[in-house]
């Protein structure tokens, strides 16, 4: 299924104020992979996601989504394939009802209203909040908002799901529910997070970013257990891997 491949070739990005946020990144993500992108605050994770989505355009290098290079021209097509879930769901839920929010994307692609309705129902059911469809987003709880934000992206039937810190501010149960939901999504997933335990459970592959460059790229289980690498990149091993109070093991 090479048409869903996401590829980044020698990417550089400099913010207008001169800050070099991405300094030569190259990787290839295949269809169905779930990839965690981790790194310290300010490493460049969010910037990388924006380059993938065609929100920003690289100063050098290119991004290819299913063989199509992401340029100003191809962006509308590429975006239909990619869905991005923001860190703050309030930024993403801008309509007055959950239904309208989830229908926003499909309507913009000029689908029939019956098809729109089908998709909205499907998406809301998938995240388990069909009963909230007529509610106003500002009255939802944090977890419900997050679910609605995901539904608003799922209704566009993306092949690739990008998420920026999806578990922040959720209580442990809601976090678990979200992780289960994401686990069930069979397309490509690219997730950035400081919740390394979530990355550990959800992603088979991890890319570690440091100062806008790739510090490591490989199987999650290996990278996250590498205490030295983690420490070097301003990170820490997932808590589940750290000292076990039963067997007394310390630091992996």
């Amino acid at each position, binding site marked *: 299924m090479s048409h869903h491949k996401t590829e980044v070739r020698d990417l550089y990005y400099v913010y207008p104020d001169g800050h070099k946020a991405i300094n030569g990144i190259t990787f290839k993500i295949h269809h169905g992979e779930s990839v965690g992108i981790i790194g310290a605050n300010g490493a460049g994770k969010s910037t990388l996601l924006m380059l993938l989505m065609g*929100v920003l355009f690289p100063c050098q290098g290119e991004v290819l989504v299913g063989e199509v290079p992401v340029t100003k021209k191809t962006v509308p097509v590429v975006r239909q394939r990619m869905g*991005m879930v*923001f860190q*703050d769901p309030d930024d993403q839920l*801008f309509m007055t009802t959950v239904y309208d929010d989830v229908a926003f994307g499909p*309507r913009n692609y000029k689908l029939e209203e019956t098809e729109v309705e089908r998709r909205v129902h499907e998406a809301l059911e998938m995240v388990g909040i069909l009963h909230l469809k*007529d509610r106003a*987003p*500002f009255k939802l709880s944090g977890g419900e908002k997050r679910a609605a934000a995901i539904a608003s992206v799922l209704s566009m039937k993306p092949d690739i799901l990008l998420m920026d810190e999806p578990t922040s501010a959720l209580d442990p149960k809601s976090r678990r529910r979200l992780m289960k939901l994401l686990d069930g999504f069979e397309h490509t997933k690219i997730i950035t997070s400081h919740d390394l335990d979530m990355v550990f459970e959800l992603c088979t592959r991890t890319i570690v970013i440091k100062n806008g460059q790739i510090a490591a790229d490989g199987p999650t289980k290996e990278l996250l257990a590498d205490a030295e690498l983690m420490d070097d990149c301003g990170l820490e091993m997932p808590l589940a891997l750290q000292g076990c109070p039963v067997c007394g093991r310390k630091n992996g």
Partner: protein
Amino acid sequence: MSNIMNSIFDIRLLDDLARKETIVHRIHPLVKFLTTFIYLIVVVSFGKYEISGLLPLLIFPVLIMTLAELPLRPILKRMLIAAPFVVGIGIMNPIFDHQAVSIGGLSVSRGWITFLSITLKSVLTVSAALLLIATTGMDKLGSALRMLKIPRLFVLQLLLTYRYISVLMEEVSRVLRAYAMRSPQQKGVHWSVWGSLAGQLLIRTFERAQRVYLAMRLRGFTGEYNTGGYPGIAARDIAYMAGWTVFFVIARIYNIPMLIGSLFTGVIL
């Protein structure tokens, strides 16, 4: 502070009420909007010495409130809060207009009549606006505006403002709370902090707006605001509007209480 909290409750309350399912809620939003407008025009067209003629018009808010199963108390509370300017202006009348009028043998200054008339009008107009939103909701009202051919740019912008009001009010109230925590016994924000406190809030808002725009663009937004189809106007909607309009016009032309009163006093005397 408590002011902001109360405003958040008000918006939430009205939003909740608007999601009820009653006969009134099911009336077409555009029809409700137009009916309210006709009502308002009729109410304000009464002169400044009018009281009795206005009374029959009370039936409109009362009927809507009962049929829509709306709670009386919060709506009354809102009306009181809305009153100060109107009362402030109204109360000038007894001062400037002393001419005495005799009503039922009692001598009353004409200014007081004007004052009463203004107060009554305030009650009627304020309740009409609140009831419109409490039985329609902002989203449906938005679609009514679209049907009136109000440009979609304006409608979308209006809905966005509505959507983000509670987000930003909560943000503002958190900032004020943090401020109050470190500045006991201060009623408001000290002038030395005006610029940085409000300015930082503004910059954050600006950044949020950019993220919102980004989120919209990522979902295919190109400046078009696509809504679903509008619900059609049914016979019952037309009947609703026609019924009320006829009543309003009758109430405007004939002083109903006076008719009733004359009937009564005529019978009794």
